[in-house]
Structure formats: structure tokens, C-alpha cells
């Protein structure tokens, strides 16, 4: 059937800082899923990728989402695969968590393996303040928001 062979592209030399800013609840609209797919695709190009979860976007990482009644695919567990795609920076805004009565314990655990530390598993999720996110945002080449 398909006769195109998979290839890995060399994109050496062009590394930019990409921030994906997630501000919407995971289900009910298509924004979160589309963003997640964009993130996974961008990971193939060896860029410096970070994700931010703020406002209702913090629900994207919430454990125990049940999508049966809204008839959407449950992709909550896909966030756990981000570490496999070498995405190591998931920033969650503290103010947004607190405003929704959530703590880091309510969030899915996402880990990555640190190449520089004998492949030790480390948590990818970091809870940071709104001010810290502003600083991080300032450092980016590209910010994509949904």
C-alpha cells in the first residue's frame, strides 16, 4: 500500500524555543487535543519545547477524567507519553491551580529520563507562579496559544 519509507530528518543547527500555552479545558472543544498533537509532531524536529498549563488548561493534566458522557476520546493518558518524546518542561501555573482548588497531587504524573544523570526518571511537571511564566515567555522564540 503505502510505499513511502519513514525517514528521520536532520534539522541540526536550527533550534528555537517553542512554548505551547494551554488555556482551555481538555474536553468539550478540540483545542487541547489539537495542541497536544502539534506538540508531539514538533518533538520530531529536536526543538526546545516547553508547555504551559494555565486557566482551565490545568484541567488537561487532571487525573481521573471520564469522557464517556461527552463522547470524546479520552486522551488524558497521552500526556504521560510526553517524556518518551523528550519533552521535559511542563509548567503549571500555581494561581490557576489554587483558584480551582487543585494541587499537584491532582495531576497526572509525567516523567522524563535525564540523559545527563544516568537516565534517572524525573518529574516533568513544575508548578510555577504567574510571574515566573511571564519571565519564561519572554525567553521564547515562538509562543503558540490555544
Amino acid at each position, binding site marked *: 500500500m*503505502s510505499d513511502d*519509507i*519513514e525517514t528521520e*530528518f536532520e534539522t541540526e543547527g536550527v533550534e528555537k524555543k517553542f512554548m505551547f500555552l494551554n488555556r482551555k479545558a481538555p474536553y468539550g472543544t478540540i483545542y487541547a487535543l489539537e495542541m497536544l498533537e502539534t506538540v*508531539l*509532531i514538533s518533538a520530531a524536529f529536536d526543538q526546545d519545547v516547553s508547555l504551559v498549563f494555565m486557566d482551565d488548561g490545568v484541567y488537561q493534566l487532571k487525573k481521573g477524567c471520564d469522557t464517556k458522557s461527552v463522547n470524546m*476520546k*479520552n*486522551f488524558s493518558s497521552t500526556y504521560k*507519553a510526553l517524556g518518551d518524546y523528550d519533552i521535559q518542561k511542563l509548567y503549571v501555573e500555581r494561581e490557576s491551580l489554587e483558584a480551582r482548588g487543585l494541587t499537584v497531587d491532582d495531576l497526572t504524573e509525567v516523567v522524563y529520563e535525564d540523559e545527563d544523570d544516568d537516565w534517572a526518571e524525573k518529574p516533568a511537571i513544575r508548578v510555577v507562579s504567574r510571574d515566573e511564566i511571564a519571565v519564561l515567555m519572554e525567553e521564547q522564540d515562538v509562543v503558540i496559544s490555544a
Partner: protein
Amino acid sequence: MSYEVNGKTIECDEEGYLEDIGEWSLDVAKIIAKDENLDMTDEHWEVIDYLREYYDEYQIAPAVRVLVKAIKKKFGPEKGNNKYLYELFPYGPAKQACKIAGLPKPTGCV
């Protein structure tokens, strides 16, 4: 497009990936593999089983480099490398094996 399996029609997209992962069975996998001109061995099925486990856990078909890394972690470096996996699945260990495993086309495959 579709596959005919034991008198039943199983729908697939234009590249041969199943429309409904729920329709997958071992017989379906064998038909897809035949369509891909692959002689399936235990080594092939090991990768297919692993892909289905990965999908169960993460709801995603992994990109090729993610698959290679994950296989290396689970089965060791003699299987977790491009050469071994491309020998099993010449048209791409992620694309071709995912198709046989009934999964969608891998996300992040360029």
C-alpha cells in the same frame, strides 16, 4: 477501502489503517500483514503486541524514534535499534507495525 476477514468487511482509510480499532483481531492482523507482503514471525508479533500495549496505556501510536527507544528499554539493545526493526518492518517499524496492530498512523511521524 476495506479488508475482507472471515466474510466480514473491516473498514480502513486510504493507507490501510483501520477506521475502528475495536474491529481488530488476530485474523485482521494476519490479513493486513499479508497485504503488506510480510511473513509474520514471533519477532514481528512481539512488536505488534508491544504497540498494542503502548496504545492501551497512552492512547497514542508512538513515532518511530519513540518506539525504538521503548523497545530498547523493554527488550534490550539487540532489538531496540533501527536495523533490527527495519528488517522486520521494511516500510517503517512505526507505520507498518501500527497498521498491522490496528492502530492509527503514528503521531509525530514526518
